[in-house]
């Protein structure tokens, strides 16, 4: 179990450090909230990318997952503590931690549900997540072309897990420097979904997958048992 935990957490930590280097703003003493959002997004992707191939799907995975989330939250807490400008955000660590946990579960559940340490499912899930995370950038022009229809704009903002993290951090990330330059959404009218709204949506998604898994497992075991009875 310790080995599994390390297999999860070391790649996550490496990804966080790399992303910190890539997205650092050297002359900005404030430590932008955007960087924290990128760290969180990288952590979520990392958990998916570095899931050990071939590891058995057992009931021990849940405690491992919890340990992973605890480590990620701890890393964020340290990052927030070192950065003097974001110490005020420590008060938001609980919603942030919750949202990270929910997002990690949401990302990993498809992998677990389909017993998939297989590369194909990982790639599909990763691709879908990459598309969703980056939706505010590449889907922004669509909102402009359609005249900034409020429903469409808010939908595009809402589908990105970055928005969920931003809401938990109480940060208008679409108007931070990088996004304002690369996404048209910052110049349009939009609203973020509420934090509780995001939690409900993701928990519903996870619950659906778990129920689906239970049904899948039930059918699989039922057929297995029936075949055994028939052959015997």
């Amino acid at each position, binding site marked *: 179990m310790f080995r599994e935990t390390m297999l999860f957490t070391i790649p996550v930590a490496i990804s966080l450090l790399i992303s910190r280097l890539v997205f650092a703003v050297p*002359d900005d003493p*404030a430590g932008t909230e955007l960087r924290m959002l990128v760290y969180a997004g990288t952590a979520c992707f990392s958990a998916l990318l570095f899931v050990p191939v071939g590891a058995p799907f057992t009931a021990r995975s849940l405690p491992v997952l919890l340990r992973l989330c605890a480590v990620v939250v701890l890393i964020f807490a340290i990052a927030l503590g070192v950065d003097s400008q974001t110490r005020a955000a420590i008060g938001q660590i609980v919603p942030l931690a919750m949202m990270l946990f929910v997002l990690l579960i949401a990302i990993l559940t498809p992998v677990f549900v389909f017993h998939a340490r297989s590369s194909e499912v990982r790639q599909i899930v990763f691709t879908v997540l990459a598309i969703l995370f980056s939706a505010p950038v590449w889907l922004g022009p669509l909102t402009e072309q359609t005249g900034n229809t409020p429903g469409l704009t808010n939908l595009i903002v809402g589908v990105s897990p970055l928005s969920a993290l931003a809401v938990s951090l109480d940060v208008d990330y679409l108007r931070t420097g990088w996004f304002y330059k690369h996404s048209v959404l910052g110049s*349009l*009218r939009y609203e973020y979904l509420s934090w509780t709204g995001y939690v409900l949506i993701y928990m519903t998604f996870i619950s659906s997958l778990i129920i689906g898994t239970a049904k899948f497992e039930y059918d699989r075991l039922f057929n297995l048992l029936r075949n055994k009875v028939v052959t015997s």
Partner: protein
Amino acid sequence: MRTTKTITMLISITLFLGGIAHAAESKGMDPELRDKAKRAVDEGLHFLRTSQSDDGSWSNSVGITALSLRAFLQSHRGYNESDGAFITRPIDFMLAHINEDGSIGETNLNRNYNTAVSMTALAATGNKKYDEVLSDAQAFLRQLQIDEQEGYEKEHAYYGGIGYGGDERPDLSNAYMALEGLRASAVDDDDPVWEKALLFVSRSQNRSESNDQEWAANDGGFTYMPGFSPNGGTSSYGGMTAAGLLSLLFAGVDKDDPRIQAAYDWIRANYTLEHNPGSDGGVQGLYYYYNVFSKSMAAYGDDILMDTNGNEHNWRNDIARKLLSLQNEDGSWINPDSPRWWEGNKDLVTAWSVISLNAALQ
């Protein structure tokens, strides 16, 4: 004979005085155009009346409500709170969205913008009972301003700037709005907020003599924020140049100051109302440009502007003709070519346009 002479003299004096009065009223804008502009204002305000919600708001937005209210209060009709619910309800709507930190707004987004335009609108009522609200709002904007409290030193490009309020990235557009709100609510000239803001405003200008940033060019115009223009690189464009000029004036800089003259010269060199000069495609932020152009020219004080080709322009006539040509049949205005910066919203664009005409009619 003597009686006839007296009467003739009296009539002459009367005509002379009437002529003076008429000339004073029509100073700047041609009289016939002035009447048309007033009619356009009335039609715009009529549209706003029809689009106003039952709670007095427009587009369910504190910011748009404040701008619409300002359009009414500063119009030639001289509307005030005694005129009825269409004035008092939007005030109540804004007051109902006062937050604990002194900001005014229905959302965490656009806190600076909403608070600043609300301050301008409340100040325009002339009612002293809003002084405490204005004082709290001033305090909010001061703490929003980037300075040592956020860990920035004077040498940093962001120092003195003000952003949307949801993050710490400042920009000249939000800074000018905040300064307008602070000036409208009569913040003292010696308040440090002005000096700090001047640093940021100067660092947003393409004028290397007063901008210590390496990227600064020398056309005298302004860019969106230090080191960035949405039109590419650090290029100057009309909306921000007018905003920068207005910001300098708000901050108490003398009209003859080289920074102001450089900005005015950029406007002279790029004078047009056919598009937002220097912007990508010229249509983005067009009505924002019209609005801030009118206010900046009114504040600068010269009715006649000579462009760098030697042509004279009466900016009051020009902006009035332009806005009249763009007004829709229902009295509204809208930017059909770009929804950026909310210019696809009829309430907002109509409010901006009426405010522009109000400034030109001053």
